[in-house]
């Protein structure tokens, strides 16, 4: 058994940074808490470095429950990078806040849980990771202590509690009929188990993971939290936990491949993308629009998950798409943070008032549609390839129709950008820089991925 703690170096860095931030917050004056975000950022950067180094080494399993493989590498790098962006995004709004250091520490702890979620190959660790990823996020949602934030936090918590209970029940059921909690054991154990019990346990387990992924039926919290929570937190909860959830879903599907997995996930994927797109049509609040957009993107992301073990394209599709999604979604939320407006009308003339911000938003929104040469385009191409390769052409067709339909509401946001400016241009330089960086990264990933695909 491999029990080398060095294999968990990135996670330990994050943990150390969180602890350091927490300790620093205890002793620092309220007005001068900048070392806390600095420590958190440093921990994330160190974790990124270790994760990058680990990615070059062959895969292994640590402590019998923690897989260090390609999925974990991508999860680590994406989660750490996204978290770093969120910390930077939040640094401005929470500066001088009484609980500034706690804010960053909560983000880090949640991110740590997310990485664990994506890396665990044992149901018990999965449950622990779920709790670690969720509980700090509930607190973050209500961080503003205002009415919408409190409502959002409560809804988030209640949904998470119910679906987490389902998940615990599912784990109990599966471990009971499968005679174990480790995936390799479950793989053999579930093969001979009663199908109805396995189906019930599977759906119950999925309930928690779908809650984290923001997919049907665990999506109800997404619009309310995205609209009610502070923008940086909204960016976090719609981006980072999903990464771990999809990694966990894919890992479960690929390593255990229970009966009926593709059909079940395909139905969920189709329902999720369709519901998200349709509900986004009439939104005039950009945060709600983005929330439904993330629901529909979750539907697309479930397509390679459904194809886990059926197509060689499924894993690259999921990993590429999830990274591309994280970059694009963070870019869009960074624009919302920078602009400081939630209504569509507030974005009129943004392109003239702040060309960099407007251009970044255009790139991100066109990226959501899947326009070349953005990163999501490559992810979507791989996703379609996986669906066709896995004999689920109908799913590809549904995804294609949904993609066409999604153009409508993304354009609803793009068109006002070209109008006459209505008010003074929003400054928020830090967020603008993050938005521009995300847009550039999206283009770079798209061009590099396109070149790699073509080669």
């Amino acid at each position, binding site marked *: 058994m491999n029990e080398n703690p060095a294999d968990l170096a990135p996670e330990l860095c994050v943990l150390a940074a969180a602890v350091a931030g927490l300790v620093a917050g205890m002793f620092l004056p309220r007005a001068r808490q900048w070392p806390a975000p600095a420590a958190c950022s440093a921990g994330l950067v160190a974790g990124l470095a270790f994760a990058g180094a680990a990615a070059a080494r062959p895969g292994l399993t640590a402590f019998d429950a923690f897989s260090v493989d390609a999925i974990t590498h991508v999860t680590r790098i994406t989660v750490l990078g996204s978290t770093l962006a969120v910390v930077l995004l939040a640094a401005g709004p929470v500066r001088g806040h009484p609980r500034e250091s706690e804010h960053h520490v909560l983000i880090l702890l949640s991110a740590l849980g997310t990485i664990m979620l994506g890396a665990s190959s044992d149901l018990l660790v999965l449950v622990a990771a779920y709790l670690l990823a969720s509980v700090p996020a509930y607190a973050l949602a209500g961080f503003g202590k205002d009415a919408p934030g409190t409502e959002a936090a409560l809804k988030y918590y209640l*949904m998470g509690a119910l*679906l987490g209970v389902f998940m615990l029940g599912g784990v109990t059921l599966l471990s009971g009929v499968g005679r174990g909690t480790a995936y390799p054991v479950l793989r053999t154990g579930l093969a001979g188990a009663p199908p109805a019990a396995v*189906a019930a346990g599977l759906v119950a387990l999925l309930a928690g993971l779908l809650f984290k992924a923001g997919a049907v*039926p665990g999506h*109800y919290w997404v619009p*309310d939290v995205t609209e009610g929570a502070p923008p940086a937190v909204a960016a976090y909860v719609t981006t980072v936990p999903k990464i771990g959830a999809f990694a966990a879903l894919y890992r479960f599907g690929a390593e255990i491949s229970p009966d*009926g997995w593709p059909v079940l996930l395909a139905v969920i994927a189709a329902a999720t993308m369709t519901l998200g797109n349709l509900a986004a*049509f*009439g939104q005039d609040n950009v945060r709600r629009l983005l929330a439904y957009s993330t629901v529909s993107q979750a539907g697309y992301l479930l397509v390679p998950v459904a194809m886990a073990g059926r197509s060689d394209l499924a894993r690259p599709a999921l990993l590429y798409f999830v990274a591309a999604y994280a970059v694009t979604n963070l870019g869009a939320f960074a624009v919302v943070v920078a602009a400081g407006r939630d209504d569509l009308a507030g974005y009129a003339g943004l392109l003239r008032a702040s060309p960099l911000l407007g251009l970044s938003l255009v790139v991100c929104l066109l990226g959501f549609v899947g326009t070349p040469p953005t990163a999501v385009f490559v992810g979507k191409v791989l996703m379609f390839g996986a669906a066709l390769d896995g004999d689920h052409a109908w799913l590809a067709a549904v995804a294609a129709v949904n993609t066409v339909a999604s153009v*409508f509401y993304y354009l609803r946001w793009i068109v006002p950008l070209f109008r006459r400016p209505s008010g003074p241009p929003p400054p928020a330089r830090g967020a603008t820089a993050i938005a521009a960086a995300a847009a550039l990264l999206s283009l770079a990933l798209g061009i590099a991925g396109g070149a790699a695909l073509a080669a």
Partner: protein
Amino acid sequence: MTFLPGWPGGLAVDGLSAVLLVTLGTVLAAVLVFAAGEGYGARFFGLMLLFAAAMAVTVTATDLVLLLMGWEVMGAMSWALIGYEWWDARRVRSAGVAFLTTRAADMGLYAAAGFAVAGAHSLRLDDLAAAGAPWRDLIAAGLVVSALGKSAQLPFSFWLSRAMDGPSPVSALLHSATMVAAGAYLLIRVHPLLAATGWAATLAAWAGAVTALVLGAVALAQRDLKQLLAASTCAQIGFMVLGAGTGAPAGGTAHLVAHAAVKSLLFLCAGVWLGVLGTKRLDALQGAARRHRAVGAAFGVGALALAGVPPLSLWVTKDEILAGAGGSPALLVVGFAASVLSAAYAAKALLAAFRPMGGGGVLRVPFAQSAPLVPLAFAAAVLGVLGLPPVADAWRRLLGVPDESGPGPWTVALSGALALLTVGAVMVVRRIPEPAWALHWLWLEDAASAVVVRPAFATARALARFDDRVVDGAVKRVARGGLAVAGLAGRRVEFRVDGLVAAVGRAARALGALARRPQTGQVHLYYAQAAVVLAVLVVVAVLAG
């Protein structure tokens, strides 16, 4: 001299060209001095010089291309000069008639050039006679048509009548050394070709002879001095064409030169009287010759020469042509008859100008207008030396036809006697038969208008109607049909398609509204929905598993 490297044609001066160039230069100088006396502007002299230069190019060209260039420029200049007084609509119309008539005949020259390329593979005038069987005849036909047109021979003569609307100096030049002379020159130049075909020479000879006879009658019928002179020009050029056709090029050339002097002289005299007396009607010119001695004497010399009275120039040169026609008695008879007519119309002009009348002082004529008359009258009188045997031999050698025979003594005597008798008779009788049918130039212009112009316009109108109704109509109908089909598509097809699109949009909106319904914002409903969906998913998983 050649113009383009590798191009066989160019300009060259041989005996015939030299003679014509000298004639052209002399007449041009006289006419320009005269015109200077009338006070024309720069445009006039520029056009005149271009006109003469085009003639010079025509007579020196060695191939059909350059000849055509000169030929065309000459035609264009004749249009510009006849219509010089452009503010008078009739003159401009006359210029148009003259230009279009000669231009129509010029098509023959273009056709001849094309046939020459096809048949002789050369455009050189020397090579034309060597062309193959059908081509040679076609070339000859084209050349004869264009020459007859340019020289105002039958049936193209009417344009010369209309050309009389131009200024007198223009008439003097156009009737002597340029334009009409160009046709005669062309036939003389290509007489080897005409002779080689066998029929073309005969055709040219008869065309010339008939023109000389008929237009002589037309001249006799005229009551206007310039019209009389114009018809006489046609008749005299007819003699030259006759000479070219009967193998008497030296005689034809001599006649051309002598006639150039005579006719330019007569036109300048007519111009003087027109300028001073304001009329060119024969009955109004009564006694005009007696009112200015120099002009009167010059006119007298010219008219007597035109009549063919010995020993003046045209008497000899005409006889040289008639000597060539000796081979055909019919031609000879026609020729003599034409000679008699020419004596008669010349006598008519003489009679009108010299008839004594009471009153009227001495005319004042500018020196510049009377001075050119003297050398021209001299030339008209003495150019008959070209018929004296030693001079005639040198002349024939110059023109490259040393074998041409001169007129027999009886021919000379007969024609001189006929001329003298006719003039004498006219002077005695003082009444000249005026054939009424010839007064209007045989109604040739009306005939051309009826035969060519009106059918052409009628055809053009018919074709225009065809174009408007059928071709253009088809295009318009296609457009209307397209509009109709588009309208149909817009009402029937577009409606459905548009309706379908709108229905899809409405359905999507309705579904979008429906999709937001579950998002009630109430947690207990979320719970219920999530539980129901999960239950459904369990069923799906059980069924799928």
